[in-house]
């Protein structure tokens, strides 16, 4: 059972999430890509937990899931508030601090 393959897959998923955050314009899709990156890091944690034969990696992945849930709740509430005032969920429209 080779753990390196799992870690490489986690790297691929992380890269895809990273590109998504940088290129997509819809705030909700950007958020989904952040979730994809968190999931990729979770996969690496669980794989390394198996490699080293202790469960600390799984506990860390569990904490990442909890933090991700809290982050999604607050982030989506912020997106809803922005959408309510601007009628748009695009990350380019919230540029008031620029002026």
């Amino acid at each position, binding site marked *: *059972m080779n753990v*390196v393959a799992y870690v490489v897959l986690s790297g691929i998923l992380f*890269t895809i999430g990273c590109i998504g955050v940088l290129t997509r314009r819809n705030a909700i899709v950007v958020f989904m890509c952040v979730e*994809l990156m968190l999931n990729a890091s979770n*996969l690496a944690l669980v794989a390394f*937990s*198996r490699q080293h034969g202790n469960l600390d990696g799984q506990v860390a992945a569990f904490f990442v899931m909890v933090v991700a849930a809290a982050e999604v709740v*607050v982030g989506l509430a912020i997106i809803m508030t922005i959408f309510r005032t601007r009628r748009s969920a695009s990350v*380019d429209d919230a540029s008031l601090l620029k002026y």
Partner: protein
Amino acid sequence: MTAFWILAPIMTIAALGILFVRKAVHAALLLAVVMISLAMLYAALDAPFLFAVQIIVYTGAILMLFLFVLMLVGVDASDSVVETIRGQRLLAMLGGLALGVLLIVGLGQVSLGTAVGLDRANSAGNIQALANLLFSRYVFAFEVTSALLITAAVGAMVLAHRERLTPRPQQSDLAARRVRDYQEKGTHLGPLPAPGVYARHNAVDTPALLPDGTPAESSVSRVLVARGTIRSAPAFADDIDEIEAQMGGMAHAGRDAAVPATTTEQAPATLSQPTRTGAGVTTRATTGDQTGGGDE
């Protein structure tokens, strides 16, 4: 390892799909594919607790939250293709690919040796072993997590709450507003007419016919008009003679003998019975039969 080689291409393709699909709902569904596949990989990696948590928390709760917000924000809120920073998309692609190559090449050269495996750590059961760790070494982090969750819940409530600036209109206020609109703008006081109802087609997407044969625009929902899914009412009314000819039989003969087809449209106006705008074609058909009966 079989599960990995089956799931890894599926996950990679679904994750790439998130980058390229136009609609946010499709991206959410592709993310669900990635997350469920990831749960299966956790099961293959001797993490049954995380397998369950991944499906319940991520796919069940977080993705449903995403879909809720998508429905609130508008399903067709798709990406704009306009670049606000020139060359940003290209640079992001190049940077991302560089990161990917770095990660894959770097990780590909690592030799981690043989995996220890979790058989010994999981010997008393995966959940029991995780609980032992969680409530001993990581108990402080666990307590801090509860503070984080409460903060998130309060924060979501504060952010989503909207203060009502004007008093809520009561029923008497609404009635007074209707009468005022009638006085000032001549808006109809009563309820809007019902959509067309036909024996062949009974749907809210077909406008009713007015007594003069024109469709009543106010009888169909504004939402359907905006979506462009309105059917043509005259198209349904025009081929009534054709349909009746196909059906043949008594109705056709009786109706033709009584009244010529061209005058039936004006017939309801002359009758004493009230004409409802919502039932243009039905009144046309029934009055034809009624006048026929009266003549006989």
